[in-house]
């Protein structure tokens, strides 16, 4: 299941391309659909904001490509690929909207 998968997305009832989170292209966004991990890990990820239905953006990565950084809401959270490959996302096809203030905001 480590690559693209066509399964029915229950939230839309349509066939949609689901990819493991670690395959989400840099700066691409998607909607988290399913977490296939143990209860403890799923709970922990839930506390960090990883729920089915939440929007997620691949925002960066460590120099070696693993771990990768994901943005959920305003948080940047790093996950190892071995964890992220167990999380399925539906890839957004539309270009992510850039916040109008993003270009002018200061540190």
């Amino acid at each position: 299941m480590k690559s693209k998968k066509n399964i029915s997305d229950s939230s839309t009832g349509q066939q949609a391309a689901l990819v493991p989170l670690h395959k989400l292209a840099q700066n691409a966004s998607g909607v988290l659909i399913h977490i296939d991990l143990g209860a403890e890990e799923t709970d922990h990820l839930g506390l960090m904001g990883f729920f089915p239905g939440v929007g997620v953006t691949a925002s960066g990565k460590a120099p070696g490509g693993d771990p990768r950084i994901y943005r959920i809401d305003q948080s940047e959270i790093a996950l190892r690929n071995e964890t992220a490959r167990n999380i399925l996302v539906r890839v957004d096809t539309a270009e992510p909207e850039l916040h109008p203030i993003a270009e002018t905001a200061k540190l």
Partner: protein
Amino acid sequence: MSSCHTAPAKVSAEDLEIRLPEGGGIGPRRHQTTTVRTVAVIGPPNCGKSTLFNRLTGLRQKIANYPGVTVEQHSGKLVGGHGIKGVTLVDLPGIYGMTAQSEDARVSIDVLRGEMPGVPQPDAVLLVLDATNLGRHLVLAAQVLSLGLPTLVLLNMKDQMQQRGGSIDTFKLAQELGAPVALISATQTDGLDAIYRFLEETGGKREMVQLPVLQNPGLCRDWAVAVGRRSDYNAPASPIWTRRLDKVVLHPVWGAVVFFAIVMTVFQLVFTVGQALGDRFTDLLQRTGEHLAVYVHIPWLQSLLLDGVWKGVGSVLAFLPQILVLFFFIGLLEDSGYLARAALIADRTMARFGLNGKAFIPLLSAYACAVPAIMATRTIENKRDRLATILIAPFMTCSARLPIYTLMIAAFIPNKAIIPHLLGLRAAAMIGLYFLGFAAAFFTAQLLKSSVLKKAKAPFVLELPQYRWPTVQSIAMRLYDRAKVFITRAGTIILSVTVFLWALAALPVHNGVISNISNSWLADAGRFFEPLIHPLGFNWKIGIGLLSSLVAREVIVGTLGTIYAADPATHALSLQSAVRGDLTPGAAVALVVFFAFAMQCTSTLAIVKRETNGWKWPIIQFLYMSGMAYTAALVVNQTYRFFWLH
């Protein structure tokens, strides 16, 4: 199906008599029944709880820009006038929810539920949330409010939220939560009056407010999003400079360049600026000692004060400038947010050795001292990962090793440049010693994770903070605290040891004349151990130094200062010259290698005992590290003898 109760709080119309103080919508007025005595300060990690706690209590709990700085509860009395007396604030480790994933989170949850021995259940709660990231943090708000304690919700980092175009209607949020809400900036001391008003007006009793029972995270997140929307929460733009800096810092090539440039710069400055300051400080101490000696006319007392106390304690104090230079840079890295990125960069290597990436931050803080580092392992959820990190943390080069490393490097390594103006031979030698500690830690981690602590890999989840400018106040406080610890140890442990050793070096007294050190009890004791350390290239003086350093590593420098000052043959020499004349280069390397590996810190053993609930692991750790130190020093010295002396 478990559900997320979205039933509105049971708040009557009178209770929802919302007041609007300046700067934020302090919400429902509470009944005044009892006096508030204990107030918990809680919130998600890295949202500014300890900064707020420090502002309200005048204390100086450590703060830094990465999650997991606070790992146990700290109490302090509320100060700041307003006529409120006798209120104790309890600063708690950050939590994401009311289920304990790690030891530090367990502390917070136990305190909030009144299940922590020795800590009374809080009468009220200051719930600190990051105003720049409210969507996710409101889930925690619901969980904390459901405890039924009077709670003031503080939306911290108001300045950053507004700077980046965010906004919220605190009045509406207070209505949604059934709890008062205030928008504050703890760093700028903005909006903190709301806290005093809350404590003045809040009784121990709170109207039961039923907020969501959070058994279904997805539904609760929906609830949090809906609450945010109804409160007109306009999330601020993500910080553009954080993204830009991350593009460089996490770049496959530039990231490594930046990392090594930072490391080289820090150590080069420790050996240029730090050494220059240290030499001046040594000179000042020496001159002061000579001036004071004039006023003491009794020979044995002069010897005690000058050779025992002044040269012993002074030889350790001389390294204070270098330690402060090192801590200045560690402070910059911690406060800026770079440290969390370094953890990310190091994770791949950590994973290769079976370690959790979260171990990186405790291991990095072990460069300062292993004691807080071992405490910081509480943020690691997996118990085996945590134990492995506790056991390897003392290998990291703590600041107590810096005096002996600096002394030996300055005594034996010439002051030459490897890369002109960028990297000297001495700085390179110091980096090598730091690397040696790192390598020993990773070798041990591999050993542990492939044997007694073998387990499936634990997930690595790390929230990256935004970059922030370190503040002068924060760095200055850090340096002050470190200097205080160093000087206190010099004035207590090291002073006691040097006086004791001076006495042993002066006894027995024959016909009212103190002994020559070579005939003293100290020499007798040293010679008793000498056969054991002779294969390492050490004489009895170094042996006494090693014995005294079992209390704390830096004591050896004070001990050697006292011993060489008491010896007529080396009395007039500087400590560097005395050591250089007493050791071969092979023995000098063996000595620093011994210090790189040996467990010579009673405070660390005590904290390992506390954190592992028994003596088993500290004893194993002591034997393992001592055995490794002895073997490595033996190999180094014998190799030197074999290749250079034959």
